[in-house]
């Protein structure tokens, strides 16, 4: 490997991941243009944006375990972008609800959030993502110091809220939400295993 190659990857990696992360949006726009969203286009938009929100959330949560398992530390540089794309697709999902489902009817939205558990947890997940997105800049990371990591552990809660949101809205067929729940369980379970192991090693060293 020439010394330039790693630098090339790091220079091209981010733009490539950025473009790839936009593909679901491009695909949605294409479907809209072609009139291929089906009989209930708003529902399709809502489902697609919701699906991609969860996928990006899980992708973001997969970065650290994958980095540790493969030892490919470069993966770390994509984590923030994937996290911000999670926020982006969640906002799209919320926007579809806000505009097409409720048309800015604040009273109906408050009623939904207060009375319907799946909306309560979904809405809470979106709210909790906001501070994470706001504190994702270099300046904020520096300013928050150790608290930054504490704050960003919220993403585990958000993951659980997102999966619950999906689980609680389906009528009878739980297959798809359970797949997401399974992947989330593996990603969080890995962390639990890693922490207990690191704690044990730390103790034995002491």
């Amino acid at each position: 490997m020439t010394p330039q190659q790693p630098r090339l990857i790091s220079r091209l990696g981010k733009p490539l991941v950025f473009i790839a992360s936009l593909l679901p949006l491009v695909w949605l726009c294409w479907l809209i243009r072609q009139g291929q969203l089906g009989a209930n286009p708003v529902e399709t938009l809502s489902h697609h944006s919701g699906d991609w929100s969860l996928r990006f959330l899980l992708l973001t949560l997969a970065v650290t375990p994958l980095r540790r398992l493969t030892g490919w530390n470069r993966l770390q540089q994509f984590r923030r972008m994937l996290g911000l794309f999670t926020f982006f697709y969640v906002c799209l999902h919320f926007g579809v609800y806000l505009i097409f489902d409720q048309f800015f009817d604040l009273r109906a939205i408050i009623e939904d959030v207060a009375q319907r558990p799946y909306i309560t947890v979904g809405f809470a997940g979106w709210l909790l993502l906001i501070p994470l997105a706001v504190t994702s800049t270099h300046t904020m990371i520096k300013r928050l110091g150790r608290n930054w990591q504490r704050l960003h552990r919220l993403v585990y809660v958000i993951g659980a809220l997102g999966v619950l949101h999906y689980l609680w809205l389906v009528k009878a067929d739980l297959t798809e939400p359970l797949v997401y729940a399974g992947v989330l369980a593996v990603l969080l379970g890995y962390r639990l295993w890693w922490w207990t192991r690191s704690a044990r090693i730390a103790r034995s060293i002491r």
Partner: protein
Amino acid sequence: MLIKQPADIHPSEITPPELYARRREFLKTAAVFGAAALLPPIMRGTVAQAADDDLKLTPYKDITAYNNFYEFGSSKSDPAENAGSLKTKPWFVAVEGHCEKPGRYTLEDFLAPHPSEERIYRLRCVEAWSMVVPWLGVPLSTILPRFQPTASAKYVEFTTLLDPAQMPGQRTRLLDWPYVEGLRMDEAMNPLTLLATGLYGKELPNQNGAPLRLVVPWKYGFKSIKSIVKIRFTETQPKTTWAISGPGEYGFYANVNPAVDHPRWSQKKERRVGDLFRRETLPFNGYAEQVAGLYTGMDLKTFF
């Protein structure tokens, strides 16, 4: 034995569906403008628009591609993709329970004495979407008396075909198969209740419940059971599929009611398929005048 010969020419073969749909529109528009002529000029536009929009037919393509029919899968597009495996000819309907003339009839015999008619109904799904469908069928109230239900017949129970070979969804345990629905006798005998055999002047496509389905326009769509093979007169309230699956969420009555929310979502509004935004849901799906009397004295929050 009287066997009804199918008509040589279907109405749909004479008139293309687009034009066929418009003949109703023409009649409706004519009627609305006739009535509107009596109103002060400033109100005319609104009346015409509201009436026209409310019963604007949902395109055939959407009615036949966006279905809930778990026997063929749980996604809306599954039925259109998978229902080809259903064999609707020959088809038998068993009539059982508290009646003088039980029996097993071929579909042709079952329907024979009754001419079918067209009914344009709103269809409101419990998931808060709706359509307007031009059904073809026979009012249930003209069929049931033929079997002479006895005084003990308080309810009518309907059952869908059970055959996992033809209905791949039945190989899963999503619901308690076979699908069962039911009506109180007076609901079954209401002139609005239809046994449908077609839509848009054509035979029912399999994904819409061929060859015989119920249509109860003032109730949520899941009451309108598809591909019926059995009709039973009972003395006690039938145990219906979705009520078994989620007793707190789906009731026996399941009347469309914007004032009673589903525990997990609001029923105040609905999205008409084809619309971007939601519209207000009407009590009894807009058929209160014809059916509200069936429920006088009943607390519709308890009997949801």
